[in-house]
């Protein structure tokens, strides 16, 4: 606890130091080697571009984040729900797992023709894609967490007359939490990226759409501006879940 409380400032300092070093290298490389924008634009150029297009980018980010967050929430619910269902009814495992793996083995984009067909080109198709990508990660993490439980602790709970649900709620869920939250943390980034990629395949707006159009216009400064915004958004999202994780897992 004390470590978590004492170190953020130092951690943040180091994080900033790392970012500064990276940006310095990038800037140095781009400027030093006179890289043209279509290879790698300099950070300063990107930031200037970002500022000049801020209105468009903020709009697009809002759009993308909406898709990512809703899809993320949905994906978490589905993943947790399936894992819990498997935990309660073990027979479901052999039905759900191969199917989930098979579905997840194909890149989301592979489904885009179908998903776009079924859910249209608007927000809902992106949400579905994000939810699909997120739910698998969550399912795996949650299931592993639920399985990790000490068998004798389960026995103890049973001896108190706890049913499957009681064991799940009081023992298996708390045991699964660390892994679940790690899965949720990893999924944050993936949710944003899947939203963006899906947007690139057909959308009305969003960062992916901006990137797509910028690529066509060979405007790489704008491509990278959009990527910067996407990164910032994901980083914030990742940080938020990480923060919740530290709050919730006080005992580790």
């Amino acid at each position, binding site marked *: 606890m004390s470590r978590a409380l004492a170190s953020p400032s130092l951690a943040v300092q180091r994080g900033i130091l790392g970012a500064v070093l990276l940006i310095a290298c990038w800037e140095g490389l781009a400027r030093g080697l006179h890289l043209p924008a279509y290879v790698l634009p300099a950070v300063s150029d990107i930031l200037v571009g970002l500022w000049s297009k801020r209105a468009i980018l903020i709009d697009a980010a809002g759009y993308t984040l909406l898709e990512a967050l809703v899809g993320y929430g949905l994906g978490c619910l589905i993943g947790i729900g399936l894992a819990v269902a498997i935990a309660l009814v073990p027979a479901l495992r052999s039905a759900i797992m191969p199917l989930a793996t098979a579905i997840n083995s194909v890149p989301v984009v592979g489904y885009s023709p179908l998903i776009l067909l079924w859910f249209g080109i608007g927000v809902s198709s992106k949400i579905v894609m994000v939810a699909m990508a997120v739910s698998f990660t969550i399912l795996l993490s949650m299931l592993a967490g639920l399985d990790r439980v000490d068998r004798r602790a389960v*026995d*103890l709970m*049973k001896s*108190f007359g706890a049913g499957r649900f*009681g064991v799940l709620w009081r023992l298996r869920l708390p045991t699964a939490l660390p892994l679940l939250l790690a899965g949720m943390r990893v999924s944050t980034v993936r949710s944003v990226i899947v939203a963006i990629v899906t947007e690139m395949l057909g959308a009305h707006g969003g960062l992916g759409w901006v990137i797509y159009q910028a690529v066509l216009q060979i405007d790489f400064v704008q491509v990278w501006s959009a990527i910067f915004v996407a990164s910032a958004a994901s980083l914030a999202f990742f940080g938020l879940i990480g923060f919740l994780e530290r709050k919730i897992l006080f*005992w580790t």
Partner: protein
Amino acid sequence: MQAARLPDPGPTIEAPQVHPKPEPLLELRAINKTFGSVAALSGLQANVAPGEFVTVVGPSGCGKSTLFNIVAGLEEPDAGGILRFEGKSCHAADLLGRVSFMPQRDLLFPWRNVVDNAILALEVEGMPREQARAKALKMLPEFGLAGFEKQYPNQLSGGMRQRVALMRTFLFERDLMLLDEPFGALDALTRAMMQRWLLDVWQKYRRTILFITHDVDEAIFLGDRVLVMTARPGSVKLEQIVDLPRPRRPEIVTSPEFVRLKRTLLDAIEEESMKSFQSSIAQEKSQ
């Protein structure tokens, strides 16, 4: 219990032994249990009458905890064994939730503090958390845990952890209690205090208690009857009735009856422990 009230110094009855009445609360016949190639229990036979305090001693690894797991409903005995509870034949699993069981390892949940670990069973039963907590808080001083209610298990000493586990078991009020070395990690006085307290509870509420211990003094001091188990595969070697008057005072341990009982039991245990070491050495030799 009738047998235990016989007038004469401790009659030593070789198992199997029959209690004609009252109807036993728990009856075990021909219980076997094997784990892969290890036979843990073989032909075990025992009765426990309602309200009786039975202590179990035996060499380490002879199957005591396995026996408890079966009675707690956590493991099924091998096919062929007979298990009867409250007069009805049943599967081990039917006993789940009907006996209060304290396992040998404390199994405290690291994300629950002392109080919340203690009220685990009450919560499972559906008691509102606040009510359960209030109940537990009242018991803390008796367990020497006052002031530690907010601590987490990793902040406790070994003996304190054991006391929390014990308290958790006590709060789960069932007619039959199974205690697996509950006082193993306690110092002499704390142990003595807990023993006295346990006897109080037992006499007040007439709960039936099955109690594993390695301390023969403790087995005699507490029990109506002491079961001595054979070396692995475990069965009951000896049922020693302890006919010392109750309430028993601490000084009783120096009384001649007590010492005689202790001698009998120690002899039986030593014989079995010896066997378990010899068989272990023989097995080594044969390889």
